């Protein structure tokens, strides 16, 4: 037993595994290994550790070497099978597919993709044109709406004006031009019951006032003038204008006053006057 241990300790087994022994030593080690299981076990341990050491120091060969090596071996197999650089999972899956059908499905997907792309482009163009039309329509609707509003408010205004003429409580009075302005004329509608005073800007004939002056309407109640508000007259004046309210009046008159009106009328600037 002692010499077996010494034999193991001598280091010859390591050299044997490394192939660094003479043919005689080689035969001797093999004979010893057959006779003594301990030596056989020791050899196996040495081989295993050197194999693991080689694995720790492994260098992966390049991809194409696999095919090269396997093809050079396959000559001996008498087989025309060729080996590629490893089989990928995708290649394994493809094994059951007939190449022709694969090609067809490939082109099918190619055309399908192209068709989808074309459809997408057409859809986008159509969408843009429809969007533009929608925008135009929206603008048209908006302009029609504002026009409609204008008509409505105008109709409403005219309706209001018409009530003046329909209402029997209104009295119409024509204010005639004074000596200062003989051609001037203004129509006043007054309802004592409703205390409403309206002046008709359309059918009046007042000379246009300047920027610093305004016309002021007065009511004469027992020879005392009462302010009924100011108004402007120019070529664009139209419609009726409601003035301040008053319940009783003997006469109406208009004077030209500084802009904003005065507390009492400037008598020499009286333009028109009318009495009941």
């Amino acid at each position, binding site marked *: 037993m002692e010499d077996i241990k010494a034999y193991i300790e001598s280091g010859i087994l390591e050299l044997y*595994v490394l192939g*660094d022994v003479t043919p005689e030593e080689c035969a001797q080690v093999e004979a010893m290994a057959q006779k003594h299981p301990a030596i056989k076990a020791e050899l*196996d341990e040495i081989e*295993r*550790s050197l194999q693991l050491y*080689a694995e720790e*120091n*492994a260098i992966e*060969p390049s991809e194409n070497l*696999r095919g090269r090596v396997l093809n050079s071996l396959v000559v001996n197999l008498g087989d025309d099978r060729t080996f590629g650089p490893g089989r990928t999972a995708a290649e394994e899956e493809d094994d059951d597919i007939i190449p022709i059908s694969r090609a067809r499905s490939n082109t099918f997907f190619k055309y399908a993709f192209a068709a989808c792309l074309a459809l997408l482009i057409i859809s986008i163009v159509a969408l843009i044109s429809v969007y533009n039309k929608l925008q135009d329509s929206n603008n048209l609707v908006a302009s029609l709406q504002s026009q409609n509003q204008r008509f409505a408010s105008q109709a409403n205004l005219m309706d209001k004006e018409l009530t003046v003429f329909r209402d029997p409580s209104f009295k119409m009075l024509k204010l005639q031009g004074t000596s200062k302005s003989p051609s001037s004329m203004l129509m006043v509608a007054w309802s004592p019951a409703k205390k409403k005073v309206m002046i008709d800007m359309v059918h009046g004939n007042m000379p246009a006032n300047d920027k610093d002056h305004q016309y002021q309407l007065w009511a004469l109640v027992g020879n005392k003038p009462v302010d009924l508000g100011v108004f402007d007259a120019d070529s664009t004046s139209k419609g009726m204008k409601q003035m301040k309210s008053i319940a009783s009046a003997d006469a109406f008159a208009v004077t030209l006053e500084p802009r904003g009106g005065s507390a009492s009328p400037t008598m020499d600037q009286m333009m028109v006057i009318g009495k009941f």
Partner: protein
Amino acid sequence: MSKKRKISISEEELVLALRQREKIAVEALYDMYSASLLGVIVRIVNDEAIAEDILQDTFVKIWNSFSSYSTEKGRLFTWMVNIARNLAIDKIRSKDFKNQTKNQELENNVTFIDEQRNTVYKPELLGVKDLVEQLKPEQKSILDLVYFKGYTHVEAADELGVPLGTIKTRLRMAITQLRKYFN
């Protein structure tokens, strides 16, 4: 990059399949051992292109002389790595190889290998860090000289200037350390 599926079977199955000359065995053999064998060959010849040629020769030789392998002689890898090492050592000692290198005028093989040694001891070629720490420097250098550089223990003793007995002891200690590490 697609992940390759490597074939791996047990050593017993592989040996059986190789004896029966099965095609799958060739692929398995390559997938299981090519990297480990190439690691050894590259360290001997120090040139990846030449090493890959030698790896191809190694597989051809393994395949053609497989009938001479017997499981009683030891592990399959030991048998294969010795084929690879012998082919690699034959290569670096061939005139053809020396002519390819710039060190062609150097006639002494040992000196020639030594010239190359510096480049072989690159840190990235060393194994796992823990493993390196397990080995004493003198253990590692003797192991790598013999295993990875193709020195005989006689040449290694000469190279390192230590007695043959010491070389054997250190080699044994180094491999014993490896065994401890891998266990």
